[in-house]
């Protein structure tokens, strides 16, 4: 309901910009889910977005703003490239080790943010933001320094990694099996943690009240660190997907803003894992389909971004103002009377 209203408001905005909302949305739909190539890209981007949203949901449950999510994704990518460039990069072992390395690198980077928060009393937003810059700088250093292309140093990226380290597509229709397996298994694991384990409950409680938490003889710091560690590891996987499925090399700003988008997705989905996947899929369609708008309708390249941002904005506004609840009540009342 709220989502429908948000689409409606966005349509009005499009009309004001002199664009037909109907043909825009149709074009986005055609450009994303129709066609094997684009559908495959939708799946990959959904995986990346879901993983970053999951990471944010974990830290939000501890009442922490993990702005460092971009940096953690970049570190995941560095980890994956590190393995792919090593001696096992051209063997069957490469992909599993890329995944493990991405989780470790991302997790440790998350942990640093958590340590700055708990031991160094640095607010997690500033710690995270700072670490994002550190990660971005680290990539640039690697790309033009130790991992530079043979003979030249260019910010266009490192050498392409060996093909054995590319995440394979399944069958002829380019089904990106590894990204889907990664985010699917993370979904199941996190669901299990939050529904069934005392770790999940503790992550939730430490976010609700740290005083009450320490009263029970538990260390709030330890569980906040756990939260950052898990979040970093989860979003590190997104970095591995960027490397294994999309770029096949290390490029500057490899996170592509998907980490920050994950914050929006986590908020819009009400911090629910399953809804986050649906929202991610929707945004993935916008990203993939949006890129065809320019070609098909001759629209400006910034339009997909405008659509994406305004949907989030309207959605949050509508949810916060509870307009949709009043509407639902009004509708159900009028049905009740007739």
């Amino acid at each position, binding site marked *: 309901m709220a989502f429908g209203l948000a689409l409606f408001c966005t349509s009005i905005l499009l009309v004001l910009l002199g664009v037909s909302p109907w043909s825009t949305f149709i074009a986005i739909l055609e450009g994303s889910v129709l066609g094997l190539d684009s559908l495959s890209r939708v799946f990959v981007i959904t995986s990346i977005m879901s993983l970053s949203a999951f990471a944010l949901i974990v830290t939000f449950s501890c009442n922490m703003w993990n702005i460092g999510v971009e940096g953690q994704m970049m570190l995941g990518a560095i980890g994956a490239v590190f393995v792919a460039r090593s001696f096992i990069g051209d063997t069957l072992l490469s992909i599993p080790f890329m995944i493990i390395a991405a989780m470790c690198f991302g997790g440790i980077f998350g942990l640093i943010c958590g340590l700055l928060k708990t031991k160094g009393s640095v607010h997690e937003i500033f710690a995270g933001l700072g670490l994002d810059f550190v990660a971005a700088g680290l990539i640039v250093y690697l790309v033009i320094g130790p991992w530079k292309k043979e003979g030249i140093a260019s910010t266009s990226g490192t050498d392409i990694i060996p093909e054995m380290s590319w995440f394979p597509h399944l069958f002829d229709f380019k089904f990106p099996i590894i990204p889907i397996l990664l985010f699917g298994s993370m979904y199941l694991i996190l669901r299990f943690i939050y529904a*069934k*384990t*005392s*770790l999940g*409950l503790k992550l*939730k409680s430490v976010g*609700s*009240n740290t005083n009450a938490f320490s*009263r*029970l003889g538990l260390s709030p710091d330890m569980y906040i660190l756990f939260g950052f560690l898990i979040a970093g590891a989860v979003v590190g996987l997104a970095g591995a997907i960027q490397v294994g499925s999309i770029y096949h090399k290390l490029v500057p700003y490899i996170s592509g803003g998907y980490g920050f988008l994950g914050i929006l997705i986590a908020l819009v989905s009400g911090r629910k894992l399953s809804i986050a996947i649906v929202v991610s899929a929707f945004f993935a369609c916008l990203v993939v389909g949006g890129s065809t708008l320019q070609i098909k309708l001759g629209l400006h390249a910034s339009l997909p971004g405008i659509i994406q941002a305004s949907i989030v904005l309207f959605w949050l506004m509508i949810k916060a103002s509870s307009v949709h609840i009043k509407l639902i009540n009004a509708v159900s009342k009028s049905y009740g009377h007739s």
Partner: protein
Amino acid sequence: MKITFDSITKRYGELIANDAVTVSIESGTIHAIIGENGAGKSTLVKMLSGQVTPDSGSIAIDDKVIKGFSTHSAIELGIGLLGQDPMDFKNLTVMQSFTVGHRLNTSMMRNGLLRQEFERLNSVYAFNIDPKKKIYQLSIGERQQVELMRLLSNGAKVIILDEPNSGFSLEQKSKVFDALDGLTEEGCTVILVSHKLEDVLEYASSVSIMRKGTLVDTLDLPQSPGHLVDLMFGGHQEESVLQTESVTDTQNLVAKVQQSGQTIDLNLSKGMMVGAIGLQGSGVDTFLRNMFYDKSFLLTDAEGPIDKSSFGYVPADRLERGLFPELSILDHHALSSTLGHNVIDWTQIRSMCEDLIREYGIIGTPETKAHELSGGNQQRLMLSMMRSDINVAMLEHPTRGLDIQSADYIWDKLLNDKLSRTVTLFSSYDVDEIWNYSDYVLCFHGEDIVASCSINSISKTDIINNIAGNVIGRDE
């Protein structure tokens, strides 16, 4: 101002906090609302202060129905609520907290004027609050006092006191009520939410009795206390007599206590109930908390120091230190009972939780969130979370905000359990509570422990003299 609640209903999930409550409160009176814990008293008055929105029904002020009640409109109308958990700013000083939202606090800060006003009220009501202290350094009672001063000074037309009793000494209470009495003559209306019958009988002119979310009756006072108790509890009041088995003084337990810079050795005996008493604002407020969190605190028996992991602490400020506001009762019990377990057996936890809800008489379902519970029920939830393997229990004001029946029930339980524990410590401002239940007493005056001895070697008067700083009564 005349206030009319018209068939107010409020639900929290399955819990009906108010069920079609209709009450009319005349202008210029002190009107009491009484009822046992979770009867829906606080919910009702929170609607008047705009903190809670009713699901249905309406509120009228001077026969005008007010639509869309909010905290803002309540303040505009001059309605002030003094809650059980004061709504203040922890990081501000007392003076700053007093200034925020004060009518004299216009765009030009009139600090001098505000300070004069503060000092005036401070002395009129015999409060003894240092305006330079930070709010978080104050006890709950002192924070209530600051709030009350702000409300009075702001010219509130309707003052709601939600269980204020615990925060005031007798002298302060009579001064406050004298002031409120004076205000009613000027047309102010005072609503007193309480389950202390003696206060209600002494100060109020009319009373509404609530039970399980419904209004039982509204009566003019005086009435016989027995009749009111019957109405509050539905006529099933049982006289309970608590059995206290006193513990022989064997001194097989030593507590090393740090208080205001000095170290004191307390020679206790296993199974003792140790009561700490002092006035509002004295060292007693933070004594147990410091002991629980202080790493240097040692409790030693013949076999050496007692393991800290078997300490249990029940703080006075429930939502700030005790409970997880956003978590359900079920989550709370899962958390307290599965420390050390990895996978939670929810079926087992649920049946345990349902047992505890029944046992402690918590009004709520396993899914009710802590912040949706009434103050008294939050207290029960905290007590129900105490694990049975706790050896050292530290309880701050264990019966704060509880009605007589619940308080008796809690004491019954604590006294029952005390022999199986190494030691039970509690703090209180109430001499009777200390006198009735302690085996050993610690008296605080200011920050110092001025007397510590077995209850048999001190008289009730001596305790009062000690905490009041009257040196003649001191037994050392």
